[in-house]
């Protein structure tokens, strides 16, 4: 089976002075080699916490559920065993490359560091690897720039350095947490193209975490929409954008101003704001903002507020479409 990463019923909770925050409350997904999963959600939806949990980077959090890489269970592994996976089999890039790079070391030293640890390589081999990686991510004059420091690179070039660092150990899975959010659109296009090219060359599985539905539409094969720490909807990208079943997904798409649309009618905003994770409502966490809940009969309305909707399959099993909603929108056309 080509399943690279399988996450099952992942829960991440933090104890805070104001109570337990269930940042991620039971999500499941899988990533195949060569494919991209788009993890979409607004601030506080749990998308970044999910990725950090996969990397085993949570200190002080309670993580339960199962995270398997090539069938190997990662939850419950000790720091040492996890260290052999982290950075080697799974690599991660972050939103802000400047704060993820050490200002006192050259980019070459930083790219080589993980490689040398994981492959027990010497200084010379590490440097050669760093130059090779810089060339692969499209940095001109790699043999000269390998000895420069992060501040000598522009924002887009720094993100390329991060990608070079992430890929130096030839991981199978790349987790990209808002990798282009801090970049200008013209540079964003370059970085997305670069990730796509490297993915093709290496058969890399990618988890792309973003709030930008445009980025998801461009790169993702499968999409997981998160809301309040839970999965609202999961589907292949084509289907999700063509026939969203969860009112939240629909609402997100409707509230976006689009370049390819007329702009006479007011935007259809979602009222209210994202939920607090400190005191989650017993029912559907989107219900207080949901137009379908408001329009529903008293009985259905009460159910949305009281009963947490399970993540149910929609359409034929082959469609791979799941939504957690008592009142899903009927997928048009392709049921």
């Amino acid at each position, binding site marked *: 089976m080509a399943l690279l990463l399988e996450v099952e019923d992942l829960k991440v909770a933090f104890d805070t002075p104001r109570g337990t925050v269930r940042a991620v409350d039971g999500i499941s997904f899988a990533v195949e080699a060569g494919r991209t999963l788009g993890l979409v959600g607004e601030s506080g939806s749990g998308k970044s916490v999910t990725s950090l949990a996969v990397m085993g980077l949570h200190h002080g959090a309670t993580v339960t559920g199962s995270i398997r890489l090539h069938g190997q269970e990662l939850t419950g592994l000790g720091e040492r065993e996890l260290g052999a996976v982290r950075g080697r089999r799974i690599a991660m890039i972050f939103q802000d490359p400047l704060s993820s790079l050490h200002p006192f070391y050259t980019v070459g030293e930083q790219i080589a560091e993980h490689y040398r640890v994981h492959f027990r390589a010497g200084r010379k081999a590490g440097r050669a690897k760093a130059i090779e990686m810089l060339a692969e991510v499209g940095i001109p004059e790699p043999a000269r720039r390998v000895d420069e420091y992060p501040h000598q690179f522009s924002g887009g070039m720094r993100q390329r350095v991060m990608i070079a660092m992430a890929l130096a150990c030839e991981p199978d899975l790349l987790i990209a947490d808002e990798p282009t959010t801090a970049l200008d659109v013209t540079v964003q*296009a370059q970085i997305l193209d670069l990730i796509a090219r490297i993915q093709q060359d290496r058969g890399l599985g990618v988890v792309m975490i973003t709030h930008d539905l445009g980025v998801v539409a461009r790169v993702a094969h499968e999409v997981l929409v998160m809301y309040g720490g839970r999965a609202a909807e999961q589907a292949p990208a084509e289907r999700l954008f063509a026939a969203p079943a969860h009112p939240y997904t629909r609402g997100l798409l409707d509230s*976006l101003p689009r370049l390819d649309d007329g702009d006479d009618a007011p935007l259809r905003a*979602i009222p209210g704001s994202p939920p607090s994770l400190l005191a989650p409502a017993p029912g559907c966490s989107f219900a207080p903002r949901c137009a379908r809940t408001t329009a529903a009969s008293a009985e259905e309305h009460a159910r949305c507020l009281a009963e947490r909707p399970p993540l149910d399959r929609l359409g034929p099993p082959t469609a791979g479409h799941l939504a957690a909603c008592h009142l899903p929108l009927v997928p048009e056309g392709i049921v």
Partner: protein
Amino acid sequence: MAEPLLSVRDLVKTFAGRRGRTGRPGAPVRAVDGVSFDLGAGETLGLVGESGCGKSTTGRMIVRLLDPTSGTVTFDGTEIGGLSQARLRPHRRHLQMVFQDPYSSLNPRQTVARIISEPLLVQGAGAEEARQRAGELMELVGLIPEHLDRYPHEFSGGQAQRIGIARSLATSPKLVIADEPVSALDVSVQAQVVNLMEQLQQELGLAYVFIAHDLSVVKRVCDRVAVMYLGRIVEIGDKAQVYGNPAHPYTRALLSAVPLPDPAAERARERIVLLGDPPSPADPPAGCGFHPRCPKAQQRCRTERPLLEVVGTGGRQAACHFPEVQGVS
């Protein structure tokens, strides 16, 4: 256009260069390098561009949070670019600003009542009157007036931005400069604030200079749009022209780089991917500032700086030696 509400001419802002290790100041940075435009009452001009293009600096000079190095800002018939802060004060009530980050632009130790009434108190209103007006403004921007005595942290991001908008409207301005007013907000909340700003414009006859890097949002709100690159306007015109049939290669590339939330449309698209990053304004290239990244650059572009000139019909201007003119726009 009749007498414009705002008329900006040859606006320049130069910042002293950063001191190097020698202690000598570096080369001056021309953040804004000769920007001119007009804005009519009740109109919205979108100011777009990537980071460092000078769009925020332009906005800050208009409200005089920054003093222009040279050039003029004529607001409602008065040249305000060179006025002293004291002389500027009577004009300030008509000229307000909304900032990007609602939390850092609201004083955390002041109640909302105090924050919203501050501009009124500065303009000489009594405390009772100011408080009453603050309540009305809360209602106007869709907040509950009973929450007047709360503090900014008790509000969500979208609500906090509404407070920022309410404050900007306290003195019944004619012009609001909005600097990335929705980019710190979640997508679902962005639309609420965009709708609110449009509704307020209709009700109050406001003019906006809407500064943003998000081209989709700008297309949504503006009547006209100016695209900036390296401190200069490279294209300016009616929204329909600039978005529908861009003349400057940079505008074309910028628009084609915006991902559409539609996988099928994304795949079908022809994309112009620019090479490299925007150059530093501390060391701008000779000739056209865009030439090192321009797919159409010729010898002339490397030496001669193009001026903003009318392209085609409809009054749109572009600063390019080889503008794209497709059909009759």
